[in-house]
């Protein structure tokens, strides 16, 4: 069972597929990138007919590269389409990369001297170049093959080389990404399924959370790879009352969200590493003013601009400690594309119930990865609504914005428009209860402690961590985020090989579930696989003084099942 699609040697596909332009079009249409399941991962559709006849072969939520220019009326009609599949939403389940391929190929090969038909033929190589980028293949082999193959027609060879490079370059220039096929669970429980990517699930989860909270949804953001698709998805659903605000930068994005939160919306901001860094100061304001706010971080390779199109889990410690001062806040992570939906609702529940900013981590694997998702029942949507304050809660009809709920330590949420509850909040330390500015030492200690207690207390309000597998195993594998599938698969393999192993996956990274320490102590050895240098491991060590071990990878690539399996076997 392989977790990553394998890319066939580039030279194969074109080699066997050159009898003629039109048939090559059909051929390259199902030029396939093999997955474990033998379904192509990626389809190159040079025209509507090719799309129509080959779409069924593509794996659910695969990547489709379309030559967008060919999708005009005449071709569509010829293929029997009554509306354009590129715009009518029927490809919504797939990652579609639209490329004006003829135009770009023409531009690219201009200097080769070829003309006419040959130019258009080269667009196959353009497609191949784009595939090479998407599947991270070296260009050299294909270039050598082209040189050899066309040594008697040097202009054609040159044109193909240029087209191939242009395709690669196009992918690079536009930071093109494909969907990643993630390991399926062994069995699918009965039900109605859809195929979904993480960014879509996240967007839908936010829409569902807003409904569950009976609040309008506001999304303030600035585009960044790989988080932009959340904005794109949300902006389609204005009929749900969703307001999307593309701000001038990330600070304004979160600023706007804070404004909306003050106004009583379910306010969300989202970005990736560099953009989250910019939001740090404002997150701290939301924390001090105790306003509910979701901060989505779709992690990518760092540091700095890093590897924008590659997955990594290296923002965990940054999520916990990436703010000045003592500034604790809840951190959650989605474990798979479909889990992003549930995690969004859970994050919103916590943000609203505890009046706090919450960081929700996803990553490039989840964001662009896809999996079958058993549709949740909309009727079972939990009620996560928190009533606004409507009446004075202090002496003489006064309103005390920092008078806390005795159970949650949460403060009330009074929104503008509510007569009699006019009040001011801000970033300076607040006096307990009144919320006035206070420089008093004891108050600062109290408020620091209260903010910490409030977050710590959430531990008792979340699902305890569950262990999968053997109670009496030697090794417990603890993961978080996108490693869920690969850890489960590795554990299955270990068990198939006759060994015992247990796994646990954390959705809540701060605070940890109340039973975590007890669970960890049950197993002689604990292994933490992470796509970083050992950040959860660091947290577990500091919190529980346990010598947990790690397997780590910071290469911009996901784990292979085999490497985790191997490591578990070594530990047994």
């Amino acid at each position, binding site marked *: 069972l392989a977790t990553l699609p394998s890319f066939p040697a580039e030279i194969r596909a074109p080699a066997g597929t050159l009898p003629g332009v039109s048939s090559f079009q059909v051929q390259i249409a199902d030029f396939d990138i093999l997955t474990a399941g033998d379904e192509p991962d990626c389809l190159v559709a040079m025209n509507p007919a090719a799309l129509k006849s080959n779409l069924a072969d593509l794996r659910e939520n695969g990547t489709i590269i379309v030559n967008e220019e060919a999708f005009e009326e005449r071709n569509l009609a010829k293929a029997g389409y009554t509306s354009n599949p590129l715009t009518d939403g029927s490809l919504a389940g797939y990652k579609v990369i639209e490329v004006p391929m003829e135009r770009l190929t023409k531009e690219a090969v201009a200097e080769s001297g070829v003309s006419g038909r040959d130019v258009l033929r080269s667009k196959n190589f353009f497609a191949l170049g784009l595939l090479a980028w998407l599947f991270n293949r070296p260009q050299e082999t294909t270039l050598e093959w082209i040189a050899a193959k066309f040594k008697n027609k040097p202009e054609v060879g040159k044109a193909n080389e240029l087209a191939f490079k242009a395709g690669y370059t196009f992918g690079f220039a536009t930071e093109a990404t494909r969907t990643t096929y993630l390991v399926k669970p062994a069995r699918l429980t009965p039900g109605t399924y859809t195929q979904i990517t993480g960014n879509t699930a996240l967007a839908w989860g936010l829409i569902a959370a807003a409904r569950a909270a009976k609040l309008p949804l506001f999304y303030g953001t600035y585009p960044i790879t790989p988080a932009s698709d959340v904005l794109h998805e949300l902006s389609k659903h204005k009929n749900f009352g969703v307001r999307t605000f593309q701000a001038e930068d990330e600070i304004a994005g979160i600023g706007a969200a*804070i404004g909306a939160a003050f106004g009583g919306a379910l306010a969300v901001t989202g970005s990736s590493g560099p953009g989250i860094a910019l939001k740090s100061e404002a997150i701290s304001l939301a924390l001090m003013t105790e306003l509910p706010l979701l901060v989505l971080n779709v992690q990518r390779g760092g540091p700095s601009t890093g590897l924008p199109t590659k997955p990594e889990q290296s923002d965990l410690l940054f999520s916990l400690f990436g703010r000045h001062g003592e500034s604790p806040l809840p951190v959650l992570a989605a474990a798979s594309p479909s889990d992003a939906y549930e995690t969004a609702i859970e994050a919103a529940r916590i943000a609203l119930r505890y009046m706090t900013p919450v960081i929700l981590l996803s990553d490039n694997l989840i964001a662009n990865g896809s999996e079958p998702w058993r549709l949740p029942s909309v009727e079972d949507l939990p009620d996560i609504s928190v009533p606004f304050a409507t009446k004075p809660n202090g002496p003489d009809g006064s309103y005390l914005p920092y008078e806390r709920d005795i159970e949650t330590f949460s403060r009330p949420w009074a929104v503008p*428009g509510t007569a009699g509850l006019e009040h*001011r909040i801000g970033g300076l330390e607040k006096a307990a209860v009144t919320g006035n500015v206070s420089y008093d030492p004891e108050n600062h200690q109290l408020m620091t402690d209260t903010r910490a207690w409030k977050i710590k207390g959430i531990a008792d309000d979340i699902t305890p961590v569950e262990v999968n597998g053997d109670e009496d195993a030697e090794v417990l594998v603890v993961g978080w985020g996108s490693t869920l599938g690969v850890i489960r698969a590795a554990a299955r393999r270990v068990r198939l090989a006759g060994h015992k192993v247990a796994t646990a996956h954390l959705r809540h990274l701060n605070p940890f579930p109340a039973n975590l320490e007890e669970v960890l102590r049950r197993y002689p050895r604990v292994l933490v696989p992470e796509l970083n240098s050992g950040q959860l491991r660091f947290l577990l060590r500091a919190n529980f003084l346990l010598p947990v071990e790690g397997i780590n990878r910071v290469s911009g690539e996901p784990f292979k099942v085999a490497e985790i399996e191997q490591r578990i076997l070594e530990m047994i």
Partner: protein
Amino acid sequence: MTAPTYTRKDFQTDQEVRWCPGCGDYTILASVQNYMATMGVQKEKIVFISGIGCSSRFPYYMNTYGMHSIHGRAPAIASGLAASRPDLSVWVITGDGDALSIGGNHLIHSLRRNLNIKILLFNNQIYGLTKGQYSPTSEVGKRTKSTPAGSLDYPFNPISLALGAEAGFVARTLDMDRNHTIEMLEAAQAHKGAAFIEIYQNCNVFNDKAFIQLTGKEERVSNRIDMAAGKPIVFGENDSKAVVFRDGSCVVVDRSTVSDSEILVHDPARQDPTISFALSRLSHGPYGPTPLGVFRNVERPVYETEMSAQLVEAQAKRGPGDLAALLASQGTWEVT
């Protein structure tokens, strides 16, 4: 609901007002409170958002909803609030450092985007709260703690900057002149969309008398240019000076040297901001003849109105959001 009747007191809070004695901020506070009492908006519908700086402490003293946020970000926060709550009256309080230094980008974007927010920039040409460093409106050569040999940066002209950033409403007033301040507040409130008012504000601790040419009993006579829509721009003792547009610039001339028809008649409603811009170039800071009043007042679609309209339209077209339908929208299959 009938228009509420308030007095200034209704807008005062129980917090002690804490600016240095004699600070211009007190006067502005009084003007704003007085104005709000007559504005005709329920006070629970009013929100003041500020950044950081002496001026930005303002919201604590206004008995409305308010947020003393972080340095420079008030326009962004106000934008999100206005975009999501078009029913509110949203006011931004900011300083020359807050709005023009760290917050410059949010300022210019909120102006071009044209949300219905009213931005009051208290320009004292200094960083007050941090004890007196030069600001983006300080004159060249200013000696401050951070520039003992004199500052080198050429200052912004806030009016020119706002006009260059597509602001629809741009005005300037003076802390000391309460009536004029209130007049400008009224005009800003009447304008549908983003409004920007530069308020010259004296910081009597770190930059005292910066505006003396406009506030001094004698100086102001010859330096204060009051612009009024539809009126020829004349000023000075016995209106002996006039502004004309000549050879690509607004210039001050002796009124006696020009015919009345040559005198520029103020028209803030011109679609093209060029003449407003030219007026802003009459002075670069409060030095010499300096115009006060509304430079530009031109409406265009308001962001949150349009945004709400898109939501309404989407619902009209597609019906209110159906979550179950959304989840199934990419196609489904059954596993049995």
